[in-house]
C-alpha cells in the first residue's frame, strides 16, 4: 500500500431523509494506524455519514474507496467484507444473548457444516476478551447483566476477532463512567498500534480530541473542515463546531493534498 493511499476515503457523499439533507457533499479520509475524530453538534450528520460506511444506509450519491479502490457498500455484510467493523453507542448487542453469541452473531462458528459450535465460540470469545483484559465471571452470562464497559468490550471484541482493518466507534463512551471511558481510551491506543484505522465519533470534543490524530468537523450536514490535532487547539476546533469557522492552519483531507 502506498504511503499516501488512504485506508478509507468517502468522497462527495450526499444523503437526505425526505426533505432533510442529513449529509451534503462530505469528503473524509482515514489512514492505517490513524484515529480520526468526527465531531459536530447533535444532528450534524455524523452518524448518518458513518452509517453509509458501515452499510446501515446507502448514500444518495458519492463514492467510497477502500485502499484506493472504489467499492459499493449496500449492507453490513459488504462492509465487513472490506474489514469495516462498527461499534455503536447503543443498540449494538442482543441483550438476551451471551457474549459469545453476540461476538459471533451473523457469522457463527459451525460444526459439521450446519450446527452451531458453541464450545468453539465460547473458547474464542474468552481468548479475545482476555486480549482486551476483560474478566467476565462467566462468558455465558447474558449481556443484559454486564456493565457498560463490559458491554463495550464485548462489542470491540466482536470487531477485533474478525480482524477489522477499519473500526468505526460512534459515541463509544457516551454511556460509560470515567473509569470505563479511560479503559476504552487505552483500548483505542492499543488497536491503533496494531495498525487499525479508527473513526471516533462524538458530539463532545473532549471525548475525542486527545485520542485523535485528526478531527473532521461537521455542521448541518456539511464538512466544515479537517485539522491535525497537533496543529490546533481545542478552542480552534470548538470554533469550527459552533461557528463553522476554519482556523488559519486548517488542512484539507490528506489525500487531496497529493
Amino acid at each position, binding site marked *: 500500500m502506498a504511503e499516501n493511499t488512504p485506508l478509507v476515503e468517502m468522497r462527495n457523499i450526499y444523503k437526505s431523509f425526505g426533505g432533510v439533507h442529513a449529509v451534503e457533499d462530505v469528503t473524509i479520509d482515514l489512514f492505517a494506524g490513524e484515529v480520526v475524530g468526527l465531531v459536530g453538534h447533535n444532528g450534524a450528520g455524523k452518524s448518518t455519514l458513518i452509517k453509509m460506511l458501515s452499510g446501515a444506509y446507502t448514500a444518495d450519491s458519492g463514492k467510497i474507496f477502500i485502499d484506493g479502490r472504489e467499492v459499493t457498500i449496500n449492507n453490513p455484510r459488504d462492509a465487513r467484507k472490506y474489514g469495516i467493523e462498527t461499534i455503536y453507542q447503543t*443498540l*449494538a448487542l*442482543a*441483550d*438476551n*444473548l451471551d457474549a459469545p*453469541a453476540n461476538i459471533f452473531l*451473523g457469522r457463527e462458528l459451525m460444526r459439521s457444516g450446519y450446527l*452451531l459450535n458453541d464450545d468453539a465460540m465460547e473458547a474464542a470469545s474468552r481468548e479475545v476478551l482476555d486480549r482486551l483484559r476483560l474478566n467476565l465471571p462467566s462468558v455465558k452470562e447474558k449481556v443484559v447483566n454486564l456493565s457498560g464497559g463490559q458491554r463495550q468490550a464485548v462489542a470491540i471484541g466482536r470487531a477485533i476477532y474478525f480482524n477489522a482493518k477499519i473500526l468505526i466507534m460512534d459515541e463509544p463512551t457516551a454511556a460509560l463512567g470515567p473509569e470505563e471511558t479511560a479503559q476504552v481510551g487505552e483500548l483505542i491506543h492499543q488497536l491503533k498500534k496494531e495498525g487499525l484505522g479508527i473513526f471516533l465519533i462524538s458530539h463532545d470534543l473532549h471525548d475525542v480530541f486527545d485520542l485523535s490524530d485528526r478531527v473532521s468537523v461537521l455542521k448541518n450536514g456539511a464538512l466544515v473542515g479537517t485539522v491535525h490535532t497537533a496543529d490546533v487547539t481545542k478552542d480552534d476546533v470548538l470554533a469550527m463546531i459552533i461557528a463553522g469557522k476554519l482556523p488559519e492552519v486548517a488542512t484539507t483531507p490528506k489525500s487531496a493534498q497529493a
Partner: protein
Amino acid sequence: MSKLTTQPMLLGRSLARLDWRQYLTLFIFLGLCVVFHFLTLWKLGRPAFISQVNVINVIRQVSIVGIMAVGMTYVIMVAEIDLGVGSLLAVCGMIAALLQRADAGLLASILLPLLVGVATGLFVGLLVTYGRIPSFVATLGVLASYRGIALLISNRGQPVTGIDPSFRFIGAGVLGDVPGLASIPFIKVIPIPIVIFAVVIAVGAIVFQRYPFGRHVAAVGGNATAARLSGINVRAIKLAVFAISGICAAISALILTSRLNMGSPLSGTTMELDVIAAVVVGGTSLYGGRGSVLGSILGAMLIGVLSNGLNLMAVNPHWQPVVKGVVIATAVLLDQLGRRHEE
C-alpha cells in the same frame, strides 16, 4: 463424537437452558399430575389419570395444539403474533377433505394443505415486513377471512365427508399399523399423531437451539436493530417464522381432519388462543427474545393435563375456560415480574 453420546448431551443442554419460569411450569405440571392421579384414584377407585390409555390420550389430544405451539414459539420469539392459525387450520383441513372426496390421492391431499400453510405464512410475513402492518392486524385478517373461506368452500357450512381409509392413518393410525412394528409391545400402541408431534418437537427444538437460524430468531427478538447491523436479514427471518407457523397449522389440520374423518369449516375456532396460551405458559415472552420450544410443549401439556383432569373429575365443563384463563393470566404476570426483576 457418536450419535449416541450427542443425544443425551442435547437433552442436558436443553434442560440447562430452561430458566426458572420453565422450571416453575414443569413443577406445576408434575404437581398437577400427582394431584389428579390421587384425586381420580380416590373418586373413581382406579388409576384413571396415570394409566397407559389416558397418558396416550392426553398427549394425542395435546398434539394438535402442541404442534402449532412449536411454530408459534418462533413467531413470538421475534415479538410477533399469529392469530390466524385456527382459521388456517380449518382451511387446510377443508382442502384435505375436499381433495380426499375428489379422489385426488393421498400425496396431493397432504402436500396441498402444507403448501397453503407455507404460502399463507409467507403472505403474512410479506404484509408484516414489506407492508409494515403489525402482525396482530395482519393475522387478525387471516383469522376472519380464512374462516370465511373455510365456510365458502364447504357445502353451506356442512362438514365434508368421504375421506379414503388410507388417509385415516395420519390421525387415527398407530405405529402397530406399520409393517414390522406390529409385534413390538408398547411401541405398537403409540398413535401416529404422537409420532408426528415428537418429530415436530425434535426438529423445532434442535433448529431453535443448535442452528444459526434459531440463534438469529432469538437475536431478532432481543434486538432487531443489532441483528440487522450484524448482517442478519431480519425480514427473511420474519418471513420464515410465519411460514413455519403456517406449516405447523397445516400439519395439525391433516391430523385433525384424518382423526375426525371429515373436514369441518368450524374446526380450530379460538384454537389460536390455546396455542398462544401454551407458548406463554411455557415461559416465552410476548415481548420477544426469550423462550424455548420445549417450554411451549410443557405449556401445552400443562393446559392439556388441566383439561383432562377436570374432565375425569367430571367438573362442570364451563369451569375449564375459567381455570385456563387464570393459568394464562398467572403466566403473563410471572413474565412481567421477571422482566422487572431483570431490569
